[in-house]
C-alpha cells in the first residue's frame, strides 16, 4: 500500500460541526436527531443545504441519506457511502468525505451519526435476542453467545484480563482513564456528567460489570446526533469559520481481525487495527507523536485507551500504565486526552462527538482548551476495524 501521501491530506478541511443535546431519552426520532445535527453543522459552516452533494454515515445508522436530504431541502447527491464495523466507522466518515472531495466526486460532504442508543436499542444489552439467521456475521456470535459472552464489555474484558496479566497494569491504571475523562466532563456543560468528577476510589468501589471491568470503566449510553461538514481547503478559506485541516485520515483492519473478539492471533495485548491506522497517520502526515498536543482516544471501555497509547507510539508497549499516571493524560499533563469528557463523560455518540472535540481544539474553542494546539489526533472504535484522523491548523 502506498503510504507516502494521501492526496487529500492537507487539501481538505472540516468546516462545520453540529450536535443535538446528549441525553438518556431524546423524546424524538433518530431521523430527527440526524436532521437537527446536520442542520446545525451546516449553519456552523455557513453552507446552504443545497450545496451539499455528498453524505457519509455508519452502516449501523438507521437514517438514510435521502431522508435527511429531503428534510433539509438538499438537491442532487453525487456521493453517498456507509461504513461498517460499528464505532470503527467514525473517523473513516471524514476520510471518505475527504477522498470524495479530493477526487472531485463531491464538493461538500456531510458526515453524520444519530441514534437513541439509550432509550431505544441498547448495545450494552447484548446479543442474546439476535435472531440466528445464518450468515457470516451472525455465525460469528456462535463462538460467544451460547457461552454467555454477550456484550461489548464482556468481549473487551477478555482481552483486558490478559493485558493486565502480561503488562502488570492494574484496575487502578484503567481507572486513571476514567478519572481523566470525568474530570474533563465536569467542566463541559454539554457533558452528561457535567460537574460530576469521580475519584480513583470511586472507580475502584463501583460495581463489577464484567471482571476486570468496573461500572466506571464502561462508557455511558446516549441519545443524540452529531454531524460534521467536509469540503476542500480552498473552499474552506472562503467560509466564515476557521478551517480545520485534515492532515491525515486512515482506516485499518489488523491481521487476524475479528469483530470485538480478536482472540486467536497474537497475545491479546495489541490492537492490530490501530497499529495499521497509526502507521498510516504518521507516514502520511509526516508527523510523530511528539507533534500532537491533544488526542481524543476512543473510550467505549478504558482498557483499549491504554492499548491505543501504545499502538499510536505515545509510549512503548506495556508502558501505558506508567504513561497515564500523575495526571499525564489530564489537562495540564503531557498529553491531555478526551478533553470533552470522552464517551465515559460527555456522551457515547459512536465517537463522532470526539471528532467534533478535535475540531474545537484546533479552532481554539474547546471549553477545556489545550494551549497552542497545532495538531490533534482522533481515533475511532477499537477492537473492530477502525479509523483515525490528525487534524491541524491552516498555515
Amino acid at each position, binding site marked *: 500500500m502506498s503510504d507516502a501521501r494521501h492526496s487529500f491530506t492537507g487539501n481538505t478541511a472540516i468546516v462545520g460541526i453540529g450536535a443535538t443535546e446528549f441525553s438518556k431519552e431524546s423524546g424524538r426520532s433518530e431521523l430527527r436527531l440526524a436532521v437537527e445535527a446536520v442542520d446545525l453543522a451546516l449553519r456552523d459552516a455557513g453552507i446552504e443545504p443545497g450545496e451539499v452533494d455528498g453524505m457519509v454515515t455508519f452502516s449501523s445508522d438507521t437514517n438514510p441519506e435521502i431522508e435527511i436530504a429531503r428534510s433539509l431541502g438538499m438537491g442532487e447527491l453525487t456521493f453517498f457511502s456507509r461504513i461498517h464495523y460499528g464505532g470503527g466507522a467514525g473517523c473513516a466518515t471524514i476520510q471518505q468525505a475527504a477522498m470524495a472531495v479530493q477526487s472531485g466526486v463531491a464538493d461538500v460532504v456531510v458526515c453524520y451519526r444519530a441514534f437513541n442508543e439509550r432509550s431505544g436499542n441498547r448495545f*450494552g*444489552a*447484548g*446479543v*442474546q435476542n*439476535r435472531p*440466528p*439467521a*445464518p*450468515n*457470516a456475521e*451472525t*455465525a*460469528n*456470535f*456462535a*463462538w*460467544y*453467545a*451460547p*457461552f*454467555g*459472552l*454477550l*456484550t461489548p464489555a*464482556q468481549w473487551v*474484558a*477478555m*482481552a483486558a*484480563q*490478559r493485558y493486565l*496479566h502480561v503488562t502488570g497494569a492494574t484496575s487502578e491504571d484503567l481507572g486513571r482513564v476514567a478519572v481523566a475523562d470525568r474530570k474533563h466532563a465536569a467542566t463541559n456543560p454539554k457533558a452528561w456528567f457535567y460537574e460530576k468528577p469521580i475519584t480513583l476510589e470511586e472507580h475502584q468501589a463501583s*460495581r*463489577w*460489570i*464484567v*471482571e*476486570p471491568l468496573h461500572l466506571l470503566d464502561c462508557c455511558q449510553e446516549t441519545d443524540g446526533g452529531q454531524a460534521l461538514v467536509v469540503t476542500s481547503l480552498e473552499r474552506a478559506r472562503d467560509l466564515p469559520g476557521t478551517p480545520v485541516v485534515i492532515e491525515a485520515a486512515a482506516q485499518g483492519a489488523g491481521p487476524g481481525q*475479528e469483530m470485538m*473478539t480478536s*482472540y*486467536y492471533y497474537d497475545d*491479546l495485548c495489541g490492537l492490530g487495527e490501530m497499529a495499521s491506522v497509526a502507521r498510516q497517520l504518521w507516514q502520511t502526515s509526516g508527523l510523530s507523536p511528539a507533534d500532537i498536543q491533544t488526542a481524543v482516544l476512543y473510550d467505549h471501555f478504558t482498557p483499549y485507551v491504554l492499548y491505543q497509547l501504545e499502538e499510536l507510539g505515545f509510549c512503548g508497549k506495556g508502558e501505558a500504565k506508567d504513561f497515564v499516571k500523575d495526571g499525564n493524560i489530564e489537562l495540564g499533563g503531557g498529553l491531555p486526552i478526551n478533553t470533552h469528557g470522552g464517551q465515559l463523560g460527555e456522551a457515547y455518540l459512536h465517537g463522532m462527538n470526539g471528532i467534533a472535540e478535535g475540531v474545537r481544539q484546533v479552532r481554539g474553542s474547546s471549553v477545556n482548551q489545550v494551549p497552542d494546539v497545532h495538531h490533534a489526533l482522533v481515533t475511532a472504535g477499537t477492537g473492530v476495524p477502525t479509523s483515525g484522523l490528525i487534524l491541524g491548523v491552516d498555515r
Partner: protein
Amino acid sequence: MSEPDPAADASASTEGGPSLDGRLQSFVGLSTGPTHRAPDPVNLPMIRHWIEAMGDRNPVYVDEEAARAAGFAGIIAPPTMLQAWIMRGLRTSQEADEARARGVETPGSPNDQLMAVLDEAGFTSVVATNCDQHYERPLVPGDRLEATSTIDAVSGEKKTGLGVGHFITTRLEFTDQDDQVVATMLFRILKFRPRPPAGSREAAAAPGTQSTLQAPPAERPKRPRPALTQDNSFFFEGARQHKLLIQRCAECGTLRHPPRPSCANCRSFDWDTVTASGRGTIYSYVVNHYPQVPAFDYPLVVALVELEEGTRLVANVSGITPDTVAIGTAVQVGFEAFDDVLTLPVFRPVVASAASGDASGETRKS
C-alpha cells in the same frame, strides 16, 4: 375509586381512576412529612464516634490547630455526616414500625401515601440507590440543624437488575439556627417488584401477564442459539457427540478456529477435522456480572482456552469460582447438554495428578 389491579400493566389506566403514572406524578413537589429537627447541636463527641467508625484520620475534624492550618476557623464536622445530625434514633423508628404492624392508623404523610400506592401496584420492595450531597458551608460545633424534605421526582417504570420499579428522589434542605441553607441532599430509592428467582414458576410469567398460578412449570430459558452455516455447524454437531473438533486444512494440515471456508496458509478449500485431546490452559477469562440473562448463572466465568493443539476457543469453565479462576490453569474438556439441541464444551480444572503427567483425559469428578 377502584382498587388498582396489581397484575395490570403499571402504566395503563385502571378503570375509573387516574393512571398509576398520573397518581405518582401528583406527589411530586409535596413535603414528605414534618420538619426533621436535630436532637442535638453539632458536637465533638459525636464527630469522634463518626470518624472512629469510618476510619477517617483527617485531623481537621478533631484538632483545632490542624483545622486552622487548613484554613478553617476551627474544627469542622465531616461533611458526609450531614444526615446523621437529624436522625431520629433507632427506638423512634422501631416504635413507628411496631405501631404500623399493630394496625394503628396514623395520618399518612404524602411519603407514606406514595409508598402505599406503589405497594398496592405490586412494587413492594425498596432499595436505596444513590445520594448526592451539596454543601454550602462546613458545619461546626454548636450548629443546630433542621431539614425539610420534598418529593423531588418519581420516575416512570424502569427495568432494573432487581426488577421493574420506580425511582423516587427526595430532596432534603438543611438549614441552620439562622435559617440559612447549609446543605441540600438528593436521596434516591427504587421501589420495585421483586424478581422471582430465575427458573421459578413466577419467572416464567412475563411482566404484565394476568396469571402466574395457572402457568405451566417453567423451563429454564434456553441459551442463545448459534447461527449455523456450512462453515461452522460441524463443531456443534461434534459437541453433541462429545467431541471437541478443530477444523484442519486437508492440504497443508494447518488447524484453524474459528472455522473459515479456506486456509489462509495455502488457500485450499478442502478441510476435515481432528478431535482435540481436550487438554488446554486458560489463556484469559472474564467473570460476568451484568447484564444478567436468565439462561445463565451469575457470576459467570467465561474463559479463552488455549488447546494443546494450539488453537484457542471461548467456553465456560465449571468447578472453578470467580476467586479461583486464573490465567494458566490447566483444564480438560467435558460436555454439557443445555437443551435438546445445544450441547457445548465445558472445561474443568485438571486435578493435580492429571496435571503432573497423567494424560488419561479424564475430567475431574466433583
